[in-house]
């Protein structure tokens, strides 16, 4: 964007706050974006010579408001409603002074939450939701987002344009939300960020297993939310969970670009810095005594992250945590993970028993079949093992997964 990387970093750090505040001011997301980018251009001309203002956010907001009002004035054909709204806002505001610091922090954090909540519109697909959040809230370019999702920039452009049209019509009030509304918004937005991380963590198809930039942006959004709502234990849990998992990313792919399962990862490659940050967050969350799904998931990740090896992992604790997790998330996928832990504590037979009743619900989930296949192999049942692996292959695995499954099938056939 500019010749000054420190300016770009400063702008992107300020962006979520600025876009949220300007959207409140203009009641128009696109105008807010345009006003902010014009304010950044002005800052690029002024800051390198005059130095950083005392309050860069207030400076950009004041300049952004003026820029937005200019745009409105020039838009003769703009609908009269917008004009009126902007004029009435203007009357009680002394926007000429860039040092004017009238930012209401409580209002601002709800505005940022609102912005994320608008992006998580239920009519949009998950990928469109998070693409929008990356575009609007974080300010990534269409090219960057397309690269992160491994799709063509042109396609991404069209999707973002379409998605934007949907959310601009969304009628989400600007009033400070009550405690119930706020917690619902936090839940929706947390889930969007959680799924964004998962999209990065386990790509659904294609060669690349991990779209690391998506994980990093999910972490960034979780950090942003937690900085706004620092007493929310589930946000602490969410960020801790991300950090525990992201700490392993260097160990997850080998030189051939294949996925390395947890048991076989070189644990010296795990980032101890991230693990200890996650540990600190989780400890802080748990002492509140208000557990939830993300905290329990983080606690499970913590057990893995602090074990020196797969053999020394406290599987009994993991199994216990999965049964607690099932109370918050009564889903077959949680059961499946529970079964994997159960196999470690009580053996593959018990795990197969737990998995069998899930067949109907999970028959299109390839990990169900590959896990079941492994348990059948462990109990020398090679025919059903091969069937399970074949079922997994039929469900569009990624290339490295497919490679691993073919090896397993060959091993079964040797025994038959």
């Amino acid at each position, binding site marked *: 964007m500019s010749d000054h990387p420190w300016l770009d970093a400063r702008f992107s750090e300020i962006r979520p706050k600025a876009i949220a505040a300007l959207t409140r001011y203009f009641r128009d997301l696109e105008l807010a974006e345009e006003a902010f980018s014009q304010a950044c251009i002005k800052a690029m001309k002024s800051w390198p010579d005059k130095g950083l203002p005392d309050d860069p956010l207030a400076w950009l907001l004041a300049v952004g408001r003026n820029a937005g009002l200019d745009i409105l004035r020039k838009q003769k054909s703009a609908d009269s409603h917008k004009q009126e709204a902007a004029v009435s806002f203007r009357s009680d505001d002394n926007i000429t002074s860039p040092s004017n610091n009238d930012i209401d922090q409580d209002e601002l954090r709800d505005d940022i939450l609102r912005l994320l909540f608008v992006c998580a519109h239920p009519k949009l697909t998950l990928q469109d939701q998070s693409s929008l959040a990356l575009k609007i809230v974080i300010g990534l370019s269409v090219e960057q987002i397309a690269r992160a999702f491994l799709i063509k920039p042109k396609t991404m452009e069209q999707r973002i344009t379409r998605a934007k049209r949907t959310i601009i019509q969304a009628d989400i009030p600007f009033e400070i939300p009550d405690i119930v509304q706020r917690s619902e918004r936090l839940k929706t937005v947390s889930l969007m960020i959680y799924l964004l991380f998962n999209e990065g963590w386990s790509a659904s198809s294609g060669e690349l297993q991990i779209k690391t930039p998506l994980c990093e942006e999910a972490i960034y959004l979780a950090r942003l939310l937690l900085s706004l709502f620092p007493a929310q234990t589930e946000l602490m849990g969410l960020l801790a969970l991300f950090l525990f998992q992201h700490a392993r990313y260097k160990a997850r792919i080998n030189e051939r670009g294949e996925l390395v399962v947890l048991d076989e990862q070189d644990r010296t490659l795990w980032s101890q810095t991230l693990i200890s940050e996650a540990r*600190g967050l989780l400890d802080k969350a748990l002492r509140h005594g208000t557990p939830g799904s993300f905290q329990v998931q983080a606690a499970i990740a913590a057990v893995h992250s602090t074990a020196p090896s797969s053999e020394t992992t406290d599987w009994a604790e993991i199994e216990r945590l999965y049964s607690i997790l099932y109370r918050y998330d009564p889903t077959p996928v949680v059961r499946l993970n529970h079964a994997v832990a159960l196999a470690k504590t009580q053996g593959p037979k018990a795990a197969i028993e737990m998995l069998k009743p899930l067949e109907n619900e999970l028959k299109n989930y390839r990990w169900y079949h590959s896990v079941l296949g492994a348990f059948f192999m462990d109990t020398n049942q090679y025919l059903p093992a091969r069937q399970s692996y074949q079922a997994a292959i039929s469900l569009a695995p990624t290339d490295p997964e497919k490679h691993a499954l073919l090896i397993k099938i060959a091993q079964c056939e040797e025994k038959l």
Partner: protein
Amino acid sequence: MLYSFLIYSAEGIHDRLSPDEQEITLDQHRALQADLKESGNFATARLMPISNAITVKGQSDPKQKPLVVDGPFAETKEQFVGFYLVEHKTLEEAIATAERISSPYHSIEIRPVMWSGGALSDMNPVGATPN
């Protein structure tokens, strides 16, 4: 005199730099630390984000247990992100040290140390105990 160098920065900024830019700032610190190691004792730490912090607040009634709260809340524009402790003969020397790790992303407060203890006792022969 023992000087503390208190580094303040908007917390999210470092993560928003490109990996190359991050390396440039880290290299400044690596170079300074290598030199400080040659010349004598020093201490340094980078702190985790304030989301990881809690605050223990003493109550006015001494019989009540102190309050443990989350935060501090990030209402300030810049946060305390890390520090150095280095022995210098003059303030000019201390300023020169701060200049070596200066960047557009943060500001550094130089404040002389009144007393220090524990692992830092050796670093401050004048005031090694509270007085």
